[in-house]
Structure formats: structure tokens, C-alpha cells
């Protein structure tokens, strides 16, 4: 009898009985009052019970950062690991236990600074992970240095004369790393975020979700331009598969290509809706193109940039094992020991 067989015999939690409360822990939540992380936590707690997965089958892995304290506040299996390495650890969890639903929670520093390589490799391999990157464009936990997503010229403790770093575009990067699901949400946009989280959760393969998150202590208001009710319509554009790219108060504006293949904002009425770009979640190059729509020249896209299905890393590895076992002549390790050239001394 295998040491693992109890997992099959034991009575698993009935997912239908689970509610938001079941995912809260007894640990005091220690983010600053007003931090955007609270809203994201709430959305995740709302999403998890809806997925039809027993609570004990969730694993949350994080790195280090304010955002990375997330697992303590989520009553599942979890690991608050070391800085930047969560994608690797989560890969080990998922590859060894494809039956689990494995999530990574990370920050812009954790994921893109020290952890950039693990992130893009996990995405490239299409390991079936849900990766939530809280982007507050700052290192929160270490008290306010610029991060790889901070805008150039930003003055912080470590860049008193203004940072000379150009920022990464996380969506571009994820797409170039061959991620099969790439999306963006915003902390205060509960509905939009909820929808994106749900789609990510149901995606089979690696899902990368960038979540704009306000750090009200060290980078307050970074996303006000697009969360402010007054300007939102002009500064945000919602991506919908198969739909033309429209935004503005009454959808009066749209995105089209100019002759040089550069994007431009057009007036829908005069330009014609048929000449607008149409969103297509399956086209990586188009997704990349959309990721280049950057404030203030363009409205910021939110929603799903790319969603395609390809065999997952963990799935293919499992298949190889299954195939090898089917072909195996049995005999376990003894057969290996006995194999090859040998001689007998009597």
C-alpha cells in the first residue's frame, strides 16, 4: 500500500460547503490600513470557494514582500518562501502533485526583480500555476525603493535624483515568455478583478495576472489616473475577445493602426468601427501590441490579453511517467541493480 493512498481514501471537503469565511485565517492581517492588498485578498477569498475544489487541495506559495504575506491570511496549504523563488517552489509542488491547485502570490519586486528569471521560465514551460503579481510599482516591505515597474525619474529613497531605470512592461514580458494566459486587473475594481481571477483559475496552464495595487504609504495614488471615476472612462480600456477596441464615455473612442503599424486613438464615429482593431485572445503578437498601450498616450487595457490552451508541463511530465510505467517490466529498483554487465564470485 502506497504511503499516498490515504489521500484517496480520506473524505475530502465537499467544495459546495465552502464559503468565503472558510478561506480566512486566524492571523491578524498586518498590511497598512488602506493598502490595496486588502481588496485583492477579499476577491481571492470570494473566488476560491466558487472553483469546486476542496480547500485542502489549494496551495499558495509566495516570496517576500508585503504582498507575499498573503498565504498567512488564506486558510489553505501555503508557503511564505524566500525572495523571488515562489515560481520555482510552486513548480515543484505542481509537478510532483498535479492533483493540487497551485497559486503564486508575488509583488513587482519579488516577481520581476530578483525573481524575474523563475517567473519567465515557469511561464515558458506552461506549468499549471495561477500567478498573481501585485504591482504597486514600489518595494513596499523594504520601505520604498523604486522597483522594475517604477516609472523613470521616480524619486525614492534609493533614487533621490530620480531613477534612470526604464521600467518593464510586465504584460509584454509575460507574453514574450510564452504565457498561455495573461491578464490585468485593478485592486479597487472588484468586479473586473473577480472576473479575471475566475478566468485565471479555470485556465489550464500558467496564468499570469498583473494586479495594479495601491501602496498608500510609499507610492500612493499610482493608479488614480485610471481608478478615479471622473477620468476612468478615458484612461481605461476593457479587453473583450472578438470585440473592437473601444473606450471613452460612450465608447466613442477606439484604437486603430496607422500606416506604420503604430497604434492610434481614433474617434469611432469618423473613423468607422470596422477599422478598429478587434481583440483576439489567441494572437500573442496582438496581445503584445495591446500591452504597448501605455498611459498617458493611451488608455490602459484591463482584462485578458491572451488565453490559449497548450499541453501543460506537469501534464506532459505525467504522461511520460504513465507511458514509461505502462512499458515497464516491473521489478522496481532490484531490476536496475541486477541489470547490465555483472559477474559472480563464489
Amino acid at each position: 500500500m502506497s504511503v499516498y493512498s490515504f489521500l484517496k481514501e480520506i473524505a475530502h471537503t465537499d467544495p459546495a460547503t465552502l464559503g468565503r469565511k472558510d478561506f480566512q485565517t486566524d492571523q491578524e492581517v498586518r498590511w497598512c490600513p488602506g493598502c490595496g492588498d486588502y481588496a485583492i485578498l477579499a476577491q481571492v477569498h470570494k473566488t476560491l470557494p466558487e472553483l469546486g475544489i476542496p480547500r485542502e487541495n489549494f496551495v499558495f506559495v509566495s516570496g517576500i514582500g508585503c504582498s507575499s504575506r498573503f498565504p498567512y491570511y488564506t486558510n489553505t496549504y501555503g508557503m511564505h518562501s524566500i525572495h523571488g523563488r515562489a515560481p520555482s517552489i510552486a513548480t515543484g509542488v505542481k509537478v510532483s502533485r498535479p492533483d493540487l491547485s497551485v497559486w503564486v502570490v508575488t509583488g513587482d519586486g519579488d516577481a520581476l526583480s530578483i525573481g524575474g528569471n523563475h517567473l519567465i521560465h515557469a511561464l515558458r514551460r506552461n506549468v499549471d500555476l495561477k500567478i498573481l503579481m501585485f504591482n504597486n510599482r514600489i518595494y513596499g516591505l523594504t520601505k520604498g525603493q523604486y522597483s522594475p515597474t517604477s516609472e523613470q525619474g521616480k524619486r525614492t529613497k534609493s533614487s533621490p535624483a530620480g531613477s534612470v531605470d526604464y521600467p518593464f512592461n510586465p504584460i509584454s514580458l509575460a507574453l514574450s515568455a510564452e504565457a498561455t494566459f495573461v491578464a490585468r486587473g485593478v485592486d479597487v475594481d472588484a468586479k473586473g478583478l473577480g472576473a479575471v481571477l475566475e478566468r485565471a483559475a479555470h485556465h489550464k496552464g500558467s496564468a499570469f495576472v498583473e494586479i495594479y495595487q495601491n501602496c498608500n504609504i510609499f507610492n500612493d495614488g499610482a493608479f488614480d489616473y485610471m481608478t478615479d471615476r471622473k477620468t476612468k472612462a478615458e484612461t481605461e480600456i476593457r479587453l473583450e475577445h472578438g470585440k473592437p477596441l473601444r473606450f471613452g464615455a460612450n465608447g466613442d473612442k477606439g484604437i486603430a493602426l496607422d500606416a506604420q503599424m503604430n497604434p492610434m486613438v481614433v474617434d469611432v464615429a469618423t473613423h468607422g468601427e470596422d477599422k478598429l482593431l478587434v481583440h483576439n485572445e489567441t494572437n500573442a503578437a496582438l496581445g503584445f501590441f495591446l500591452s504597448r498601450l501605455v498611459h498617458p498616450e493611451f488608455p490602459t487595457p484591463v482584462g485578458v490579453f491572451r488565453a490559449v490552451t497548450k499541453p501543460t508541463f506537469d501534464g506532459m511530465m505525467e504522461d511520460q511517467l504513465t507511458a514509461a510505467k505502462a512499458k515497464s517490466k516491473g521489478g522496481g529498483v532490484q531490476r536496475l541493480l541486477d541489470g547490465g554487465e555483472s559477474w559472480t564470485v563464489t
Partner: protein
Amino acid sequence: METTISKSSSTFESVAIRFAGDSGDGMQLTGSQFTETTALAGNDLATFPDYPAEIRAPAGSLAGVSGFQINFSSREVFTPGDEPDVLVAMNPAALKANIADLKQGGILIANTEQFGVKNLERAGYKSNPLEDGTLSAFRVFPVDITNITLRAIADVGLNQRAAVRTKNFFALGLVYWLFSRDMQHTLDWIQGSMAAKDPVVAEANARALRAGWNYGDTTEMFAQRYEVPKARIEPGRYKNMTGNEAAALGFLAAAELTGLDLFLGSYPITPASDILHYLSKQKHLGVRTFQAEDEIAAIGSAIGAAYAGSLALTTTSGPGIALKSEAMNLAMMLELPLLICDVQRGGPSTGLPTKTEQSDLLQVLYGRNGESPIPIVSASSPGDCFYAAIEAARIAVTYMTPVVLLTDGYLANGAEPWRIPDMASLPPIPVQFHTDPATFQPYARNEVLARPWAIPGTPGLEHRVGGLEKANVTGNVSYDPMNHDAMCRLRAEKVARIADSLPATEIFGDAEGDVLVVGWGGTMGALRAGVERARAEGHTVGHVHLRHLNPMPNDLGDILKRYRKVIVPELNLGQLWMLLRARYLVDAVSINKIQGKPFKEHEIARAIAEHAGSKA
């Protein structure tokens, strides 16, 4: 094959032969064929393959020389031998690189065809050593190996290039003849494995082999032959085993003994890569191998797999350990079982990647921030890597801790005849995942201070672990000063107590007396042989070879006191030595050598004699 024995022959107790040639000359294959045949002939033996450094050197260059040494005997053999009795040099570079080691009066067989101007120059010879008298201290046998071989296989129908490549089998045949070995095993192998790939090539090699034999038998060159009688060897089935293969098999065996699935996260690095290669072929045993993007991801994935319930392993060499140290520390803090195999190589930095050294001991012991106790197990011979791997796994799952297994380049690539174990005879290693929510506390401890292993998928045991200090029992994050103090000491105590599970330390030789030789790792054979020599010379000498470097055995302190002098030979600048001095306040002497090469028997014997002599 019946082989007629002609010419006179004399009997020797031990003989060491070194085959040396260009990387392309097939010396490793020649060596392993000779090894198997010799093993079948009933000798005890030890071997040492000496590959060129990582670079692919031009043909004929010194950097491209590949060697294989075998020491076989009618007695017990511990090392490949200090100085070969016979050197087969397939080209000038091979001669140049190896002649210094050949015993005075030893036999040198050289392939004259290769001693043209160009090759001599490539090897840095100003004149032909086979002709200029510089080799007068040896018995030189110049043989035009290439051309005789070509003539012997002329009608097989190989092209020139392929034909030339059979010359190593000519050399092998010649040496078989010289040492009265039976060619049948090699002929079988040629007709089996080799013929399966290319029957024409096989036929050519078989002919080359016979041609070599016949050359010895018919020419006047060799006045006599040599015989090395059978040794008394423990009965059983044997095979040739390298350290890397043995380690891989040990991990597989540990998985079977624990009932766990084996997971390997690794990033290729010399000389550890072969463990990855071997295990990636064992998918039928449920083994998952993950070639990560770097060493950190490799150990990260293994930590994830351990959390999820696998027997998790990561393999690397010294530079990789440097990179893994932050994650090793996490595993220590999480108190998860994790096997970290360090196949040591010449350091520091990139160092000498293809050479051996024992210089990672202090790194694996201390190379982490904070107080981070991790058990360390070491292997002492190629085949012993199997048992050392199992022992590492026993400690890991019993005590819920990462464990380092130290092997080295010498063990990893070296091979020895190894008695095939019976899995059923190995003690099982019980593992029980925690399942009961009522009794669950993530950092509660059992009688050996191990915390429970509760894997995802188990209802009611949802819990979070992490690298911040954790409260005793609950495992919650804790900044409490006294808790931190207590936890640091608890973790240290847990590891220290592993010593209680260890058997009494074995002492080879004298149980008290002049000198105690304390060693660890791949130097075992040289130390044992050196101790034997010294004892034969009349010194009272003991030898303790440590499998466990952390914790050390409980009885070691007492043993150290029973000798007037303690010497600690290591292939580093004195790492175990330092630890023994600190721990036992023993005025031990460090014997060190850091040349990318194993100790010679006589170096150890001499050191013992020196310190046994100083009866002050």
C-alpha cells in the same frame, strides 16, 4: 575462446596498468573492458579514470589526454595504485602527461605511428623520447599499433578513419596477452553490444583484439608474461559501479524503502550531471526529474516537492551549493526532508571543474546566514555512494530535515567492482504522513524532535510554513525573543541527537597506539592502504573514516584520546581537521594536498611514519 599460453610467466601479487591516449582513442572503453575481464578473473581491483578537463582540446594536445588506471591484485585492493607498473601510451602527449608516474623499471608500450614530428611538437617534445634515450629507466616497447591494426583488419571494409579507431582493441589484446587474461568476455561484448550497433565495426574490433594478442604471442619483443592470482573476495554478484550511478541507485532505493516518489530538481554541472542523466531514465519508477533554469530553481522545486510529499532531491557541485545556500536555509527552517547531493570538484570559484577535491565540507556546514544546522553524510567509495544516499534519506525523513550528501569527482566518475545488494535485505525506512487534525500542530515534535509531515490534500491540516522565525509548536510567525532563542537551540539539538542513532564507530587496524588516521569521503582507499603499509612497517595505527560529518559520532572523542597522535589527511587545506580541533581540542595534524588528485598510498604511509616516529 581457448588461448594457448606460450612463453614463460611469473606471478605477481599486484599490478597497476595505465592506458593513456587522446580523448578520441577510446581509453575509457579499453579500461572498462580490462576491468571487467580482470574482475571475472577473480582479482580484487580499483580503477581511476582521468578525463581531460572540460575543454575539448585539439587532437594530440596535452590537454586532450585521457587516461584509465587499474590496480588488480590477489589481495584486497584499496586504491588504483600509486605508480603504474605498465603504461600504454597511444601518442606522445599521453606519454608526456603520464611518464612521470611510471614506476622505475616499469613497462612502457608506445604506439610509434603517432610519434611523428607534428605530434611530438604538439606534446612539447623537442626530440623523439622513444629514441633519444630519455626513457632508459623503463622497459620500452615501441609498437606500430596503428599500422599493424590497419593491416589486420584491411579486408573488413572499414574506411580509414573508422579503421584507425579500432587500435585501442589491439592495445587491449596485447595487454590481455601480457597479463594472461581471457579475451572471451570482451569478445562476447563485441559480438553483443557492439555488433548490435554496427556488425562491421564489431568484426574489425574483434580482429584488432586478436591481432594484439597474437602480436604479443608471436613477436620476440616480450620475454615473459605476468600472472596475478585470484583474490579472496566475498561471494556474490558483482558489477562495475561508478559513484554517480551508485548515488542515483541509492536515491531510488531510498524512495522504494520509504514508499515515497522520488523528485529530482537539478541544473547540470560537472561532475554531478550524470546523476540527473541516470534518474531521468527512470520514469517507469515514478521518478520525476526537473531540469531547472538554475541551481536556485532546482532546489526551489525540490523544496516544493518535499512540501507536497515527495522524497525530494537536488544534485550539484560546489558552485551550485553556493547558489543554493539561501534555499537550503529555507528548507532547514521549514524542517522538510530534502536531499542535497554535492559532488565536490576542484575549487575555489570555477576552479578545476573536472578534478576532484574535498573542499566543500565547511561550505555545506556553515555557508548560510544564521544558525542553520544541517546534517552531513559522506560517501567513501564509488559503490558506497549507494549506501550513503540511503543513509542521507533515512536521516532526512526521520528527522524532517535537509541533509547534505557529499561525494566528489573521484568517486563520481571512478568505478569499482561492487557487490549487488538485495533490496529485500535493506532495512525499510518508515514514513507516515500526519493525517489527524485533532493532534495536528505544524511545529509539534515527536521523540526525536521531528515535526509532523502534513501534505497538501489532507483535509483539516491546512497550514502555512515560511522562512520567518516560527513559534514553537504552532509554527506561527513569532518575533518573540525567547522563542527565537529556544527554536535556534531546538533545531541544533534535533540535529545533534541524530548521533544517538548511529552505530559505534569502526576502527580499522589498531584500536589504540601511535597514530590515528581520521578521514572522510573519497580518500578512504588511500588512507586504508596507507595505514596497512604503515602497520606492515611496524607502527601501531588506527583508521577511522567518518560517514557522518554532522553530527559526528558520539564515541569519536574517546577514540581520539587513545592515540598519541591524530592525523587528518584531506584533499583540502584542513577542513575536518579544523572541526576536530575545535570540538575535541585535539592537537591533530593536517595532511593536505590540493592537486585535483587523490592521495597516493605512500603519501599516507610516509605521513604516518613521520608522526609515529616523533614519539615526543
